[in-house]
């Protein structure tokens, strides 16, 4: 394993009476890491810290080897960072090109010709070259998200922090996104938060699951899938021991939970592992 590019050690964050993060700790190395968790788990708060726009109340955070709390080091991080917020804003009266160009200027790309080449490159990468001259207010929601992704890719940053980048994208765009992110060289770090477990299974080398401001699981997608090993089976009806069950296209019920003896076990997916992990915790809390 290479040296970690993100080091998170016992981080806490509160907003008034709400505790968003409580003792979060894990390391991330180069490659793609997925952050999974239900709404309110603390994913966005953690990503904002990685994007240097929010400071932890307590704990230690290092990004690319630097401390974001120190002004000079924070600037060094920002020069190597690409960030796509969960709810990206836009200058609606700007064209897609103008907006990405504006961000490129704020990223200190001051050589006009080189900057325009870079803006064209990232717009081309997200498939927006044909609409780059169109005003953002005239673009669809999916196109706007791709504009947000394009600005994050400016300058091929060492650390790319993406908060739900595939939300609102159609299947073709999601596949294109996977292609785009996976094409990045191995020495870059991508941290992405998503509700799409398929994206994590398809893209990520590591996965972190969060719940209630804490890390519930950290490992490979295969290890998360293994959580559901022997706990997914098909039956004619919903089994009493199933925690979750739904009728599939074939008519059989896919049950997830404690499989009865002799059950028709099937290979679990990463989503099964995630659902069981989060469900187990909720079940344990209920029981407590």
């Amino acid at each position, binding site marked *: 394993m290479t040296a970690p590019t993100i080091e998170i050690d016992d981080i806490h964050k509160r907003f008034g009476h709400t505790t968003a993060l409580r003792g979060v700790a894990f390391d991330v190395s180069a490659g793609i890491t997925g952050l999974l968790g239900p709404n309110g788990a603390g994913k966005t708060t953690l990503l904002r810290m990685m994007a240097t726009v929010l400071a932890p109340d307590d704990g230690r955070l290092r990004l690319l080897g630097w401390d974001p709390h120190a002004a000079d080091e924070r*600037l060094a991080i*920002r020069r190597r960072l690409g960030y796509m917020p969960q709810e990206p*804003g*836009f*200058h609606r009266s700007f064209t897609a090109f*103008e907006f990405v*160009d504006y961000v490129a200027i*704020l990223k200190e790309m001051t050589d006009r010709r080189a900057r325009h080449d870079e803006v064209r490159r990232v717009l081309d990468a997200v498939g927006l070259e044909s609409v780059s001259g169109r005003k953002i207010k005239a673009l669809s929601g999916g196109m706007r998200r791709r504009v947000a992704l394009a600005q994050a890719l400016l300058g091929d940053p060492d650390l790319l922090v993406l908060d739900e980048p595939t939300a609102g994208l159609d299947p073709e765009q999601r596949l294109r996104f996977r292609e785009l992110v996976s094409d990045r060289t191995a020495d870059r770090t991508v941290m992405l938060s998503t509700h799409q477990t398929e994206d994590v299974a398809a893209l990520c080398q590591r996965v972190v699951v969060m719940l209630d401001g804490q890390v519930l699981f950290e490992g490979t997608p295969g290890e998360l899938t293994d959580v559901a090993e022997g706990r997914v089976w098909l039956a004619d009806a919903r089994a009493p021991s199933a925690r979750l069950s739904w009728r599939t296209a074939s008519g059989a019920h896919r049950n997830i939970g404690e499989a009865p003896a002799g059950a028709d076990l099937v290979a679990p997916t990463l989503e099964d592992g995630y659902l069981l992990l989060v469900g187990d915790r909720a079940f344990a809390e209920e029981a407590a």
Partner: protein
Amino acid sequence: MAASVRTAFDGARASAVPSSRSLPQARVVAALARIEARKMLRHPAFLLTVAFGLLLLRGMVGVRAGEGGLMINLVWLVAGVAVGSLIGAVLTANVAALRARRDHLLELFGSLPSPAEARTAGVLAGVVVGLGGLAAVVGGLAWVGLERFDDTSTAADLFLAVQYPLSVLALGALGVAVARWIPSVLGGPLVVIAHVFTGIIWVLPWIATTDSDIARAWHLAYLLAVIAGFAGLAFLRDRRTVLRVLVVVGAFALAVVAAVQQTPPGGY
């Protein structure tokens, strides 16, 4: 209401963001200024106020015929553009400085290496290059045009041609300062309304038509001080330093002295 509350909340959250402490790079500010200048000159608020100025003074066009009449009519047109652009400078600069907050971009911009001052400086530089540049061209052309004809040369006033772009800059800087301290799209229009419909317009002289060289010098000093004061006030919102406080206090102190000095005995 809900939207404005949300905007205020977003702003409060983003203000807690640790910002880049470096000063903005001059080349970043220059690049932003080009974009801001272009956007301001094409902004509907600016174009509408210029059209309003022309509409306001249209009655004067065509009043005088004969030799030099055309030039006088053109001067009234220029005056219409001037009145409109003075109001437009406040509104357009205000909207430009509000844009990042209004469009919920403070979080994204907070993650970039250029500090908030870069955007403030970019808008102020855009006011200078765009609105100030246009005013200098319009004022200069009007002065040259009037000078060329015997019939109108007496109306040519270099002092007016110089103070007009400075007044545009001062009002543009006012618009930026208001946007930085009153984060609402209503801030700019309220300043214009308060200015025009109250006695403030007589307290803060923007265009002076005095013949006294000393009063003229004080008026130019006044305009420069007001520009520095409002620009400093805008930067003070981004980061409070002793130097910036001293610049703002000093500039407004000079503006007060210059305003008093240029006021004729007995007042206007």
